């Protein structure tokens, strides 16, 4: 079964003369349990696709289907029990005045869970943080630890589809390795489907089964990871990108 189907997706910002078409006619699908990559340079619209799926970019047309069901412009609360997102910059995605406990507790409460304490404990263990981090504030955490908290928050509602928006680009390489390993483990444990946006081809090559190359808001090519590794891209732009990122 398909986890996510995107057909002819257009996303734009502003209107009239100021209208910017960030994504044009994007079509791709992601199978259940698959890990799919979106690569491209800054401004290519790769993150915008994720924001359109979650409803953070309100102006879009086309079809987005999650687990076979088309989603409208207003998303029901249950939608967020299926789809969750991890943001790029862990320094910006945690509320500066909320402790880890508050962040996770509020998320669980919003999704109607009762056994909040037990779940907070479990989530922290899941992302490899442990209990001693529970009552810390973001400024008492390193970048990698913050990103683990953000991942725990995304896992709280037990989603099936996790959207990852450059989850490691703000982190040091050694920390990046830890987070990528964690994401790989979580995927097997929780049978998650990933859509991962990155500008780093080697990260996508490591994490994903298939990837779409984007340029100026359009998907120019969808490749399998083997084609990526052997540099067998068809489209000249994908080839150019591959050559530049040695």
């Amino acid at each position, binding site marked *: 079964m398909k986890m996510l189907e995107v057909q002819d997706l257009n996303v734009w910002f502003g209107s009239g003369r100021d209208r910017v078409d960030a994504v044009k006619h994007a079509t791709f699908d992601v199978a259940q349990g698959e890990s799919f990559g979106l690569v491209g340079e800054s401004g290519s619209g790769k993150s915008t696709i994720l924001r359109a799926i979650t409803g953070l970019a309100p102006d879009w047309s086309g079809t987005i289907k999650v687990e076979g069901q088309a989603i409208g412009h207003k998303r029901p609360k249950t939608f967020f029990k299926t789809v969750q997102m991890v943001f790029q910059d862990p320094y910006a995605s945690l509320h500066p005045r909320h402790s880890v406990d508050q962040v996770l507790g509020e998320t669980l409460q919003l999704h109607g869970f009762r056994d909040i304490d037990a779940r907070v404990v479990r989530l922290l263990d899941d992302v490899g943080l442990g209990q001693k981090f529970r009552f810390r504030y973001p400024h008492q955490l390193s970048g990698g630890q913050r990103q683990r908290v953000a991942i725990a928050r995304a896992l709280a509602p037990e989603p099936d589809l996790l959207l990852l928006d450059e989850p490691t680009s703000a982190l040091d390489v*050694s920390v990046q390795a830890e987070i990528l*390993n964690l994401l790989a483990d979580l995927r097997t444990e929780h049978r998650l489907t990933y859509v991962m946006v990155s*500008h780093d081809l080697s990260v996508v090559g490591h994490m994903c089964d298939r990837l779409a190359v984007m340029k100026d808001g359009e998907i120019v090519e969808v490749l399998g990871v083997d084609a990526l590794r052997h540099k067998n891209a068809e489209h000249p732009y994908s080839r150019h990108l591959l050559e530049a990122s040695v």
Partner: protein
Amino acid sequence: MSTLLDVENLWVKFPSRHGVFDAVRGVSFTLGRERLGIVGESGSGKSMTGRAILRLIRPPGIVEADHIKLDGVNLLDKTEKEMRDVRGQRISMVMQDPKFSLNPVMTIGDQIIEAYRLHSKASKSEAYAKSLEMLEAVSIRDPERVMRAYPHEMSGGMGQRIMIAMMLIPNPEILIADEPTSALDVSVQRQVLDIMDRLVKERGMGLIFISHDLNLVADFCDRVLIMYAGRIVEVCDADKLHEAKHPYTRGLLNSLPRLDDPRDRLDVLKRDPAWSEAPSVSGRV
């Protein structure tokens, strides 16, 4: 090879409520007419080292060193006023994000001309001609249009090239580049590096290239200092970086995902407290 810059036992200290924090701890190195890379993770003190050379550490931070000699003259003995002549005139610095380094309400042309006339008594038309030449030197195709543009009209790669052009106008002996390409896309990154490379070769400048990207540094520099917790843990030739010995450097290299070498799990760096205890390796030649 002549030595341009000679740094001996450099410390950068930040006193705080919980005691003194040492950002850089006893670093020594020399710079000739070469491309010297400084790599390390965030918090390793690599940026602080670059700033300390120009004495750009803001109070309460303190810079201490046995000496920081530029052509045999100790920069630490200079007054703040004399330092201002050194900055820009003899040592230039390019920062990570060009957006924050350019004045948003002045055209690029005016900014370059102003920078040029600050350093030499050229007439306005001479300065204009020189500015055009500089923009051409950094491979900007349509320099006249760029001269009339405002910084927000420029892309990241253009902005960074303009910054480099501005830094090169006074013909400095040393260029310190702090993550000059990390805000740029890979394809643009290449072009900016090529420009810096050519300028270093043609003008015989010394370049200090500060970056977190091991592959980039291995590819681009002549010699590399690897910093960890404020100290240099290893010095090696850039083309031999992949044969580095120190477990920290090895750990960093192994933690990178590689397209040509797929693995199920990436190696995670295990930090040994001894690394930060060990004395700094000298980067002098």
